[in-house]
Structure formats: C-alpha cells, structure tokens
C-alpha cells in the first residue's frame, strides 16, 4: 500500500461546527477553528485526506492511490489491534485532482460505500447513520478512485 503520512501528533482544537444548517438541509459554511487542521489537506493536492477525530482534528493522514486495506497505511489509531487507519477515520476530505474518491467499510473495496466528489469534505462521520451498524465513524477500511 502506498501512502504518505502527515504529522502524527494529536492536536487539541476547539470543536466548532462548520456553519449552521437551515431547514432545507443546505447552508453556507463559515471558517472556524477547525479550518487550521482542515488546511493540512491542500486544495487540489491530489489526495484523499482523513483525520482521526471529527472536525479535521487529531492525527492526519492521506492517500494518493487506491488502497485495499487501510490497516497497512502508516499512522492512524494506535490501538492494540494494529488497525492503523482501518476503522479509524472520523472526518475526510477529497482533494483529488481528477477523480471522485470512493470509501468502503470493508477491505478490498467491499461492503457499503460512499463516492465523495472532488473538492468535497465531511467533517463528522459520527453523524453519518449506517444501516446495520451505528454510524460511519471509525468504519472506513479501503479506498479507490473513480474517474468516470
């Protein structure tokens, strides 16, 4: 598996939700304290970026290519089970240049999935309902790219 790894030190940041939602389910987002860590993932860097905690905080990691098992990525959660980045990410940002990022809840591109479009981010996977489970927090186990 090929990956590059960002700073491994945990960062404590204030949890500030990105914008307030109105009833139609869409709203403008405003810069917040979380932006500082969010910007670890540069615009159009060609990377799928992810963080250990919600609101782009905690350990930061990123991948450039497809990865069939995030257990083999460096860094991530330092749990005794050796999961590394598998079942670890809580926020995510797609800054791929040409392709949509696809994340899966099982290794080897299996199970439930989400196609996350370019230049799109999700600050809090703890809020993502997951039928048959609780939510998408600490669930992503593999990724690939779809270029259409």
């Amino acid at each position, binding site marked *: 598996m090929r990956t590059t790894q960002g700073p491994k030190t945990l960062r404590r940041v204030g949890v500030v939700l990105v914008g307030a939602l109105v009833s139609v389910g869409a709203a403008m987002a405003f810069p917040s304290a979380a932006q500082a860590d969010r910007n670890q993932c540069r615009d*159009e860097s060609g990377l799928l970026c992810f963080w250990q905690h919600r609101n782009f905080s905690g350990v930061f990691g990123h991948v450039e290519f497809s990865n069939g098992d995030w257990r083999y990525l460096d860094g991530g959660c330092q749990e005794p089970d050796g999961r590394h980045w598998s079942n670890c990410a809580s926020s995510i940002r797609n800054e791929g240049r040409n392709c949509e990022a696809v994340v899966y809840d099982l290794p*080897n591109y299996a199970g439930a*999935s989400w196609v996350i479009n370019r230049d799109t981010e999700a600050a809090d996977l703890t809020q993502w309902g997951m039928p048959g489970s609780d939510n998408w927090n600490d669930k992503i186990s593999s990724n690939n790219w779809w270029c259409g």
Partner: protein
Amino acid sequence: MARLRSTGIAVTVAAAAAMAGCAAEAQPATLSPAALDLAVRSAPYQQEQVLLARAERTLTRECMAAKGYSYTETGTGTVLDDPWRPDLEGRRLRGYGLAKGDPPVNGPKKTPPGYLRALTGDENRRATLSLSSGPRFTFATTGCLAESRARLYGDVTDAARAAYVPQEAYNALLPSIVGDPQTREAVQRWSRCMRGRGHSYASASEARAAAAGAYRAERPGAEAHRFEIRVAVADGECALAAGFPGLIDRVGRLHAGRLTARQREDLNTAAELRAAGLRQARRIIER
C-alpha cells in the same frame, strides 16, 4: 429547477412538522418509478454515471479555458466496478485494482498561478448538504467545478442532492439485500461457479481477500497481479452467471419500503434532478 427546489423545501417542512409531533398527519411518500430504479441502481445506472461525469468534465474544461487555463480531462469512460454488477473489461485489465499505485489518477501537480482559485473558487463560499440519516457534505459554490455542477443540475446544492441522496438510499437497503434469502441462494450459486473455475471461496469478500493476500505472500508482483486478475474475472463472470444484476434489482425493490418517508421524498426529488441532469449531459456531449 426552481420548481424542484420548492418541492425540496416543502418536503423538509413536512419532515420538520413530523419531528414536531405531527407524524400522524404526514402522508407516506410513494417512490416514483425513476426513484425506485435509482435506489437499486438499476441499469443503465452505471453508464449514466459515466455520462454525467463526462459532461461535468467537459463543462469544467470549457469554464477553465474561458478563464485562460488549460484543464486536462483524464476520465477513462469506465464504470465504477461493483461486486454485483462487475466491470468485466476493467477486471481483465486490472483485476479488482489492488496493485500498488493503482491507478495513477491525479495528474500533474504543478499548476500556474490562479489555477486553483479558478477551479475551486472562494474557500469562504462553501455550502453544506445535510442528508436525513446524518451525512453532511461541504463543497464549493464558486469556481469552475461548482459552475460545471450548477450548469448540469441548475444549482450546486441540487447537484449534491443528485449525487448523495441515491447513495444514502442504496446504503440503507444494502443490509436487507445482503440478508435476503434470494441473495444468499445466489451467493451459493456464485460459490459453486467459482469452485468450478478452480477458486474455492464462500463469498466475494473471501475472493477479494485471497487476491489481496497474494501481494503480501511474497509472491513476485507480476504473479500476484495475474492471480488477482484470474480471481477477479472469474468472480465477475460468476456474478453474472448467478444472476446478480437482475436479482439485486428485484430484491432491492422488495425492501425499498424500508426507506423512511423523508428518504423516499428526497429520493423522488433526486431522481427528478438526475433526469434533468442527464438530459443536459446528453445535450452537452452531443453538441
């Protein structure tokens, strides 16, 4: 598009009323035929995804050219591989795509001054779409990517609805589809087919794990890749032989009633948005 957005607002108001304790007054939404097709990714869903992506890339290239930048399209025209609706052509070339460095997706890294701003717009002008089951996606509202999505769907938030609401529905149905007795029988047919081809696996997950394991078993890379392709192609051909595409289509529809009223309403809206986006995409590609 204004009509569609008005519908969306009405739906949300209805949902909010239900949350406030007026659920008994809410009318259960019926899925439109197009929404039902979308929920189960009925053919030609995958091909339509390719068409929409191609049109978006074309619009982005034109938008960037108008701002003085060259934007390189790198689409491959291939569908997203699916365990039940396999991309056999892709599997013959790449297997499941488990090899290191696969695929080289993200193009040249150096861009001229102003390029990123033209493409992705103002960082402070972003919008968030919130789905009823919790997912929230934040994306640009300015720049050529956003403008392309808006030209395709009429509005950048509607573009996000068209992209994410169907995924929410499909994921909601997935556990029921997997657990359905008809699906389990089909998995057994798939497994027998695989055994007949020399690959003894109880499930597609096992087959994928075996292919991935070849890369970690100190086999030479080329040998592991050939093994992955053999397994992936047999897996795909057996998925078709077991009748998965049609079966998932039928079984998914049986369980569509499990979607919440809000999800059904949102999916109806998304299906309308997608149909409009597809019409626009065809106009763009054919002009």
